[in-house]
């Protein structure tokens, strides 16, 4: 029971991160119809910014806010400068540009901050002894804090989607850009905001995730998370924010339990499993669990 709970806690933490990044991917997909390959690298870049500030003795909470703002700007500028001019050409061109951005951001991380790994200070008490005991299992404050912050963030996003004027505009833009534009919605600005929000979510996820383990801030940190999050987004349905969050959590928990209990899977086969999951989902139910079917007018 104690072991199970510890696996579960770990799984929920990973799952919350997958869910956050998957939500970010879905927001971009709904607006622009593309997967943002650079989503993970954007999150990593802003996490590096936060880490750089913590080394200058800036309080962690302030670093988090600055990183989030930087993420927002990075996302919005990417949409305006790189994506909007190219997406008219073709999906292929957009994907290649995003791949280029992935490469640029990742290399910049290495050039600006070096190739070694760093330990990031946590927003929450993060000592060896700062945990509460639940059913015999240790639940660290850093994990609990991550759950709460991401839950609040995701909740706020859903409030935004469903109960505000801006959210209405975003949904209208997602469902039909031309009609939205005709009814007076500033589609361009909405798309920019969508990319900004999604990169900001990534920044929060990165800053909260990195302190959970020592030496985990490195140039390769976010890529595996991007793979898992894409699998989650696909599993939940690429156009369904709720689906992304549920699938992200499920994947995190399933992964932790599987690698905990089934020895064959342990450690380094996780991406291969994500691959199999992606292929199976696409073959059996291409629209995912909660996504809507793609209908094309001829």
């Amino acid at each position, binding site marked *: 029971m104690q072991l199970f709970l510890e696996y579960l806690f770990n799984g929920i933490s990973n799952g919350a991160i997958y869910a956050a990044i998957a939500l970010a991917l879905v927001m971009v997909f709904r607006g622009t119809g593309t997967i943002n390959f650079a989503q993970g690298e954007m999150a990593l870049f802003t996490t590096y910014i936060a880490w750089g500030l913590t080394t200058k003795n800036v309080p962690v909470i302030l670093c988090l806010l600055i990183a989030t703002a930087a993420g927002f700007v990075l996302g919005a500028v990417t949409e305006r400068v790189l994506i909007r*001019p*190219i997406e008219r*050409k073709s999906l292929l061109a957009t994907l290649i540009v995003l791949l*280029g951005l992935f490469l640029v951001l990742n290399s910049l991380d290495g050039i600006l901050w070096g*190739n070694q790994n760093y330990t990031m200070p946590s927003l929450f008490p993060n000592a060896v002894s700062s945990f509460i005991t639940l059913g015999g299992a240790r639940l660290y404050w850093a994990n609990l804090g991550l759950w709460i912050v991401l839950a609040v963030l995701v909740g706020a996003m859903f409030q935004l989607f469903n109960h505000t004027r801006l959210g209405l505009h975003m949904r209208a833009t997602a469902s039909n850009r031309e009609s939205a534009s005709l009814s007076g919605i500033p589609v361009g600005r909405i798309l920019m905001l969508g990319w900004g929000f999604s990169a900001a979510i990534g920044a929060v996820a990165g800053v909260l995730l990195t302190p959970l383990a020592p030496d985990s801030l490195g140039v390769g940190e976010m890529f595996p998370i991007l*793979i898992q999050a894409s699998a989650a987004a696909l599993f939940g349905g690429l156009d369904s924010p709720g689906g992304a969050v549920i699938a992200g959590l499920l994947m995190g928990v399933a992964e932790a339990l599987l690698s905990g209990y089934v020895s064959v899977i342990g450690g380094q086969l996780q991406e291969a499993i994500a691959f199999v999951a*992606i292929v199976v989902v696409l073959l059996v139910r*291409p629209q995912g669990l909660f996504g809507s079917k793609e209908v094309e007018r001829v």
Partner: protein
Amino acid sequence: MTAPDTRSRTSLPLQVDQGSPAHRTLQVLGLAALAGLAILGSRTNSFQVGLLTQALIYATAIAGLNLVTGYTGMLSIGHSAFFGIGAYTTGILVSERNWNPLTTFAVSLVICFVFGLIVGLPALRIRGINLALVTLALAVAFPELVDRFPGLTGGSLGLNVNLFQLLPPHWTGIGIQNRFEYYYWIAAVVLALVLVLCANLTRGRTGLAMRATRDRETAATAVGVNLAWIKVFTFGISAAVTGVAGSVFAMYLGSLSADSSFTLTLSITLITGLVIGGVATVVGPIIGGLAVIYIPHWTESLRQGQTEGLFFGSILIILMFVMPDGLMGLLKRLARRVVQIKPRAPEKPSTAGAFLVDLGATADAELEGKGDTTLALS
């Protein structure tokens, strides 16, 4: 997407009819020039020959990727895996089974074709984005799988082939110290065969169907293109070509390590080469292969580390904006100022056929005629 403008230039462009003796002469001259360059390349010092061999191998792999991504419009980020499967097929057959390296190429071809079909299957139900995701995950999963089966692949320690099994045969007259020249010629011949295959495949009916699929799926179906067949078949052929490139790579290198050679980075390198050379062109992959080998070689002398990634990433972005048809597109436009090939009028096309021709020609600017020009002049 540049609107090709065939008439309104200066008086310079010479008009040459397609299939006329003048056109044929140009083609022969072009091929002779390519062959001359190949011979010139083999005469350089052994270090240069090594680099050129790698460039030829990458060009072959890029030519494979071009079929799927360039002509059919399906972005594959997983070609590093096919390259790796080809390389390991050759590596394992030579080192464990004592096969002649050249005969393993055929096995690679078949195995990679089958893998390509399997990976192409999801493309039937899904499009663009999702296929990109599947191939991305494949690229990431491949090195893990290799590490997972150390008995077969040598795992993370790598697979080493005994040098004596890779030596040139006696009749070539090439000694052990010049063996890289042998690999160079093998890479050159494989590339030449692959380019002929690609040229024939993409100029015929299949090529038109591929481009129609890329440009407008629904319309392509309407004129009778079998989407499922075209997509899966292209994926298979493309994987097979890239797999053979991997086989040559295994022969050239003699030792394989999935963690360093066949990762996502390789896939991105191939895509970069394709974009630099020019998507959906026959000769573009050669330029792309040279670029992705020589550019890092030069940037490394400027500054160590991630400069290469920064450079390639920026190149990918900038080229998509200012030169989406790559260097080959640029060369074609320049060549068109000097010589223009007038395509022959098609003989009595059926209505559906004519429509398909239009469809294929929309974005590709009559590759049928112009492809020959550039082949002849480059």
